Each structure stands twice: as structure tokens, then as C-alpha cells.
């Protein structure tokens, strides 16, 4: 029975043409001589199976990340449902320009990451290194803008645990003028900022880890470690980077845009 390769990713092939080789050469170091690609680990049948298995493993990790961030989004949802007015008022304190610019920076970094994966697939070492570097620069720019934003908030005592916790009085005055009612209970507003710093802080930590991973990729990529046959580290770091981008795609409207209308 002819089985389509893509459907039997993790099932050993029935007709294993390399079986004889493997019996003859137990030492993986001799496998080059027997026609195996040097990048092929000995426990995989072929490069395609190896690639599918690594992708699957990375996605399994990303599913745990979905649940990890999912818990934070759940916390946001519960607190917002119980404090709708305070959350919308607190959101107005954040500056849209920083959030929007950072969204654009992060999406651009996802494009450069995707381009890096493409150049590793076609084996262009120079452009691979260039686009990995560009992705690192954009990631660092994101963190820089975030740092400026955090420092503005700290300057106004807008951080959980501040004594006393406050927000920019211009925003409070504008809110009261526009809505014709007092600014909501400041402690409920503070709860928004507990969640804001928690979620953006953990997101930023993921960015830092991603930039470090890109640093290693750039180093090994420059030394020519990746080829059209073997580029899993670039592909998998790409998956991680895009995932972190997706988290921000949800954080931006939920944190910055809910109180504007």
C-alpha cells in the first residue's frame, strides 16, 4: 500500500531502504560514508521526517505557551468584566502612539524573521545573517520604546504599589470633562496596571529570550551552519518569534484601545 509521506510523519517507513546500512554501520559517524546527509540524526529515516518532527515538537511547546498567556488573558477578562469603567479609564492613560509604533515594529520584525527563514532555505548565508541582524535590531527597538513608555508611567507614579498610586492628571481632567462623571476608583485603576505590567513584562521577557536566541543563530549562521537541507534552528526560532508577535497583536487593542470611544 502506498502511504503518502506527509501522513506518516512519525511512523517508521515499512520499506526502509536504509535498513541494511544501519545494521552494517552502528556508529553514526560512519553514516556520511553510507550516503546519509551529515545533518540527519541517526534516529530519523530522512530529512523530511526530521523536519516534521522538530516542527511538531516546537508547536507542542508553543501550545504550552498559548495556555500560559491564555491564563493571563483570562485574568484580564475576569477583572475587566468586574471593573469595566475603571479598565476603560485606565486604558486612556496609556499613550496610543507608543503602542501603535511598537505594533508596527513587531510586525516588521516578523517580516524580517520570515525573510531570514527564506534565505536559510535557499542557502543565502549573507542575507540570512543580514535579516537575522535586522530582526534583532527591530526587537531591541521594541524593548527600547517599551522602556521609554514604562519610565513615563513611573514618573507619574503609575505602577502597582506606588505610594500613592496616581495617573497623569491631564488624563483625569480630560476624562471628567468629556464624560461628565468623576474618574473611577483609583484602586480599581491600579488593578488594570497590575495586569498591564504583568502581561507586557512577561511579553518583554519573551522578546529578550528571542533576541538572545537570534544572537546565537546569527553567530552560527555566519559560520555557515545552516543550509537548504538543514535550517531547523532558524525555522523554529522563527515560530517562537512569530508567536511572541501574536501575543502583542492581542495585547495592543486590549490594553491601549478599549477606552477611546
Amino acid at each position, binding site marked *: 500500500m502506498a502511504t503518502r509521506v506527509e501522513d506518516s510523519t512519525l511512523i517508521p517507513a515499512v520499506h526502509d531502504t536504509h535498513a541494511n546500512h544501519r545494521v552494517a554501520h552502528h556508529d553514526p559517524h560512519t553514516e556520511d560514508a553510507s550516503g546519509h546527509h551529515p545533518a540527519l540524526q541517526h534516529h530519523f529515516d530522512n530529512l*523530511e521526517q526530521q523536519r516534521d518532527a522538530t516542527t*511538531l515538537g516546537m*508547536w507542542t511547546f508553543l501550545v504550552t505557551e*498559548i495556555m500560559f498567556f491564555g491564563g493571563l488573558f483570562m485574568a484580564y477578562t475576569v477583572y475587566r468584566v468586574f471593573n469595566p469603567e475603571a479598565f476603560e479609564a485606565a486604558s486612556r492613560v496609556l499613550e496610543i502612539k507608543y503602542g501603535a509604533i511598537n505594533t*508596527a515594529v513587531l510586525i516588521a520584525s516578523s*517580516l524580517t524573521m520570515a525573510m531570514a527563514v*527564506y534565505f536559510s532555505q535557499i542557502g543565502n548565508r549573507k542575507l540570512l545573517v543580514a535579516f537575522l541582524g535586522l530582526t534583532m535590531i527591530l526587537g531591541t527597538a521594541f524593548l527600547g520604546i517599551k522602556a521609554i513608555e514604562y519610565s513615563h508611567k513611573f514618573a507619574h507614579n503609575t505602577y502597582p504599589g506606588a505610594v500613592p498610586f496616581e495617573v497623569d492628571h491631564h488624563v483625569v481632567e480630560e476624562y471628567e470633562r468629556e464624560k461628565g462623571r468623576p474618574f473611577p476608583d483609583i484602586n480599581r485603576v491600579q488593578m488594570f496596571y497590575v495586569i498591564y505590567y504583568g502581561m507586557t513584562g512577561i511579553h518583554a521577557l519573551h522578546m529578550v529570550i528571542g533576541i538572545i536566541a537570534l544572537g546565537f543563530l546569527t553567530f552560527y549562521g555566519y559560520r555557515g551552519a545552516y543550509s537548504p537541507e538543514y535550517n531547523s534552528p532558524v525555522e523554529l526560532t522563527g515560530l517562537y518569534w512569530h508567536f511572541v508577535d*501574536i501575543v502583542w497583536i492581542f495585547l495592543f487593542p486590549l490594553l491601549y484601545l*478599549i477606552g477611546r*470611544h
Partner: protein
Amino acid sequence: MSEHIVQPKSYYKIFGALMVLTALTVVVAFFDFGALNDIVAMTIAVTKATLVILFFMHVFYSSRLTKTIVVAGFFWLAIMFVMIGSDYLSRGYVPRGITNYVERH
């Protein structure tokens, strides 16, 4: 080689779409649609995330096994939201009088 290589041209298109959707979500946030504001914002965010997952993350071209794992991940996320949400959001549905009555007996 069986690996599907996505061409830069499609990456540019996805990038353009993501940028347009980002601008759109900022603009619509300033209009008052009542409860629809959140639904519109989340629809745009889910569309953007889907584009990233399918094309930047190559899931569109991945094996059925990988697709299953991805869908399962979001399915379990939905289970968490439904179960925790149905607890918190339904508190107060039971009239106070009934709970008082149950506590007294």
C-alpha cells in the same frame, strides 16, 4: 526536496495586510459601537493572528499532524475561557433570596 518554500512576495503581502489591519483597529477604536467595539477589535486581532500562523509560521503548508496540534491548542484555550468564564460571569445569577434560604436550612 519536499519542503515548501514560501516566496518573499507572499510575505510582503501578509505584512501589508497586517499593517492595514493595525491601522484599522486603531481607527475603529475611536468610534462608539457600544458592546460591538470589543467584538470588532477581537475580530481584527484574530484575523491578524490567523494570517501570521498560516503564512509566517507556515502552518498552511504543514503536515496534518502539525495542523491538528495547533487547532487542539486553541481548542483547549477555548475550553479554559468557557469554563472559567461560566463560573465568574454567572455569579449573581442566583437571586440572593434563594442562597440565603439554602444557607438557613
